[in-house]
């Protein structure tokens, strides 16, 4: 046996993408429709009263926020579901009894979920172009940022999937924590528009830094300096990897 079980990584990755393909239509239609709805509501209805934010047309301004929001949800949902389902149905026995390391397992599951999340992010980006011209100041940084966000949130979802012991627990964190934090994190407005003390309070929300960083790759400016955004992304990656490492070392909720 070779040092790395590449075939196992490929098998799990393909298996997971195959699972996505089974729900391809809804998987791809939903983000397109959601994006369109957001454009109709925010871009059309509100945008007509609020034409510009920080010198950027409002409809274009919300595009990075929309992409981020969709990618947060999709990443968490897909990655958590991917590892929760085998636990729920019992098929996890095979993964646990296979000559597969923790790192290989994570690369495969997180890689597959991140792939789907990136596809959806790209679809929303393309859909947005149907409604509005969106300039991209730093295309490579944009792509890189999307990849980092996809991986970070998929890692987070993976942790959630291992932790969750019911479908309710699986839903509770994305719905009660991530969703409000995203809305309050400046997905649809600039933090600069808030008055004190809300502005300072908002800066305690880590999502602000992620959305701001992504917005920077589009317009060359964000609510906070890009360096801060990168520190937050790196921090999130490190924390998630740390937790996962601990989970596999202790066999937390995976091994009896």
């Amino acid at each position, binding site marked *: *046996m*070779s040092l790395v*079980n*590449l*075939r*196992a990584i*490929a*098998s*799990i990755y*393909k*298996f997971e993408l*195959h699972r996505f393909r*089974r729900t391809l239509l809804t998987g791809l239609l939903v983000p397109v429709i959601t994006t369109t709805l957001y454009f109709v509501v925010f871009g059309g209805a509100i945008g007509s009263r609020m034409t510009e934010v920080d010198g950027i047309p409002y409809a274009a301004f919300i595009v990075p926020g929309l992409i981020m929001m969709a990618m947060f949800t999709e990443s968490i949902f897909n990655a958590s579901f991917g590892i929760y389902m085998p636990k729920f*149905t*019992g*098929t996890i*026995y*095979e*993964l*646990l*009894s*296979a*000559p*597969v*390391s923790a790192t290989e397992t994570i690369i495969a599951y997180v890689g597959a979920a991140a792939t789907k999340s990136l596809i959806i992010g790209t679809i929303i980006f393309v859909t947005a172009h149907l409604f509005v011209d969106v300039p991209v100041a730093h295309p490579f940084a944009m792509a890189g940022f999307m990849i980092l966000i996809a991986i970070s949130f998929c890692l987070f979802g993976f942790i959630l999937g291992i932790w969750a012991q019911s479908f309710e627990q699986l839903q509770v964190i994305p719905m009660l924590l991530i969703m409000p934090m995203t809305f309050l994190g400046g997905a649809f407005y600039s933090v600069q528009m808030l008055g004190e003390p809300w502005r300072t309070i908002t800066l305690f929300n880590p999502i602000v830094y992620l959305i701001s960083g992504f917005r920077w790759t589009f317009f060359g400016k964000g609510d906070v300096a890009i360096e801060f955004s990168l520190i937050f992304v790196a921090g999130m990656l490190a924390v998630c990897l740390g937790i996962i490492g601990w989970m596999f070392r202790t*066999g937390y909720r995976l*091994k*009896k």
Partner: protein
Amino acid sequence: MASIIDIQGLTKRYASGFEALKGVDLSIEEGEIFALLGPNGAGKTTMISIICGIARATGGSVKVAGHDIVRDYRGARDAIGLVPQELSTDQFERVIDTVTFSRGLFGKPRNPAHIEKVLRDLSLWDKRHAKILELSGGMKRRVMIAKALSHEPRILFLDEPTAGVDVELRRDMWKLIGALRETGVTIILTTHYIEEAEEMADRVGVINRGELMLVEDKTALMKKLGKKTLTVVLAERLAAVPMELAEWNVTLKGDGQEIEYIFDTQAERTGVSSLLRRLGDLGIGYKDLNTAQSSLEDIFVSLVHQEKAA
């Protein structure tokens, strides 16, 4: 024969404090069929789970094909195919996809010919494009065996392979296991059907409350612990056992029509001929005689009882 699995001082204590295994030593020889026999909750599944990597041991060590299951888990798991007790399958997958997936998961290069052979051997080839949820319970069990065999393991674990399977399917399963053994695969099966161990196993281990109570060659075990029962069918009914037969400790059965005498086949004097002589002396006529070997089940029950009494 060389040992392919070597278990030493294996213990497992769950977080609740329950001791599922209390220091098990066992060695499994290459190519044999080993039956692990025990009542529910005896520790059978726990032991298999630890060997296969699903549970962690609290203490002790296990080597599989020379590889330590913790330090060199890849080498150890590479050699093992596991069919757990629960029917856990990816319901929406097709049979051939799920079996091919298993082979990849174990890091083996694609080999459609081998997959075809496994599916044919398990009579699943015709169903290879069916979704698993369309299959019957017996077929799902076979899909799980096919998954376990997909990577050509040297050892196959079957945890309660015939639990909840009807009589005909059970016979099929036995035949299948026999055929697998011919290919050189070492088979470890757990069961609480004594019939199953008796039918197939080369060696039997009896486990109860986390302790391995005995490991013995099946035939030797049956000979060693085997008691025979002599039934004497009488010409005329007896109301009670005559005083003169007290030393044989016989019991009256079948409405006084039969006398039953249990004897040890290994004893120097079985007491059979003296009993028959005494019957003749007493003028008790008999129509028929028959003896029966006690089954593994009787042996098992008596072992578990001894433990309880102790």
